[in-house]
């Protein structure tokens, strides 16, 4: 199931969303919510994170950019899980906010250290809100199923 979803997310993120948002820098990172939701309960699965990031890098020709970002996000998630309980929807959203902000900031810094690319805050914010909406919707569904 995870790998089917991964294939779908990779296809969307590397082709469809790039067409809509104009640049892969502003595309909503759907891979991150997928990894976050799959690792928020139980043990953190770094392998899935690395594979997902690596495949996305191959598709976007940015070897190492997404892979390192996703590993960093999972490190942050694992740290948060050790220190806090993520049982409710608000705590989950806060956790995702921290993870996503650290991951996006890291990737932006990595990109800016290598290239100059004009940053447009509005598409970035739109992408970020799309990710939040995805996490909110699917987590709510999962919580409903659990109860």
């Amino acid at each position, binding site marked *: 199931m995870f790998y089917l979803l991964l294939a779908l997310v990779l296809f969307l993120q*590397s*082709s469809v969303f790039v067409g809509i948002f104009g640049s892969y820098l502003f595309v909503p990172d759907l891979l991150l919510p997928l990894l976050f939701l799959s690792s928020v309960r139980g043990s953190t699965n770094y392998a899935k994170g690395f594979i997902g990031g690596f495949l996305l890098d191959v598709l976007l020709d940015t*070897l190492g950019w997404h892979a*390192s970002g996703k590993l960093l996000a999972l490190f942050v998630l694992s740290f948060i899980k050790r220190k806090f309980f993520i049982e409710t929807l608000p705590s989950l959203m806060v956790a995702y906010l921290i993870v996503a902000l650290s991951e996006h900031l890291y990737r932006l810094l990595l990109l800016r250290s290598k290239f100059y690319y004009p940053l447009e805050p509005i598409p970035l914010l739109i992408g970020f809100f799309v990710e939040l909406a995805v996490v909110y919707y699917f987590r709510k569904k999962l919580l409903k199923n659990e109860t």
Partner: protein
Amino acid sequence: MKERLFYFSLFLLSVFAYLFNLSSYPLLSSFASLINRLLMPVMELKAQTTKKVQDLVNTYVFLVDTQKRNRKLVEEVSTLSLKVSELEGCKRELLQLKGLMEEHPAVEYTLAGVVAYDPSGRDEFMLLDKGKRDGLEEGFVVAHRNVFLGIVDQVYAGTSRVRTVWSENLHVSATAGGKNYIYRGGFPKGSLLHVPQEDELKKGEKVFLRSLRLPPLEIGEVYEVYPSGEQFFKRVEVKPYGDVRRVDFVLVLRRRL
């Protein structure tokens, strides 16, 4: 702990690969080209999908822009058509005024605008925008160019009412075929009263207003002549020339019949 160390080293390797563009190094380039060759169909599909989605988004944005521009243009067109109709109205009035001024009569006159028509549709009267204040009096003759339109029958302070050639209450002296008759207005046709059986009035004969103090004004033309059942007179229908509804300005000749 070992697992975390392994992934941390993978993380460092990824950062290194990104910063130093490892895929272009000679040792790794053959591996990278192999992966590229394997993924070629996927990459092509990806490129095609991106292009198609981009085209769709551009088309959508273009259509939305076009719709907005269309709405603006429709508003502009309606404003302009309103202005055009106003200007056409002005042009028509100016042409009428020009026509009136070119053929102004020898007698003293007042130029008046028509402000209202008979709501019954029979054109029996019309209201002018000149009245007592402008020196108008009852009985003054109203004309348009050389056509007789009617007679002022009621004068108010700022307006006056004209009894037109279409009204059955209008009776004036008229000349047709060299003889004098009484013209009585009517809708849709007026008539000449008391025309003897022996008078040879023909269809199309012009009927003029008879007046000693005014220039000759046309009332209309004989439309039909019927042998009446009466012993002495025949019935003569007259079609008046005055088209009240086409007239925006008239000349009020400051003289009674």
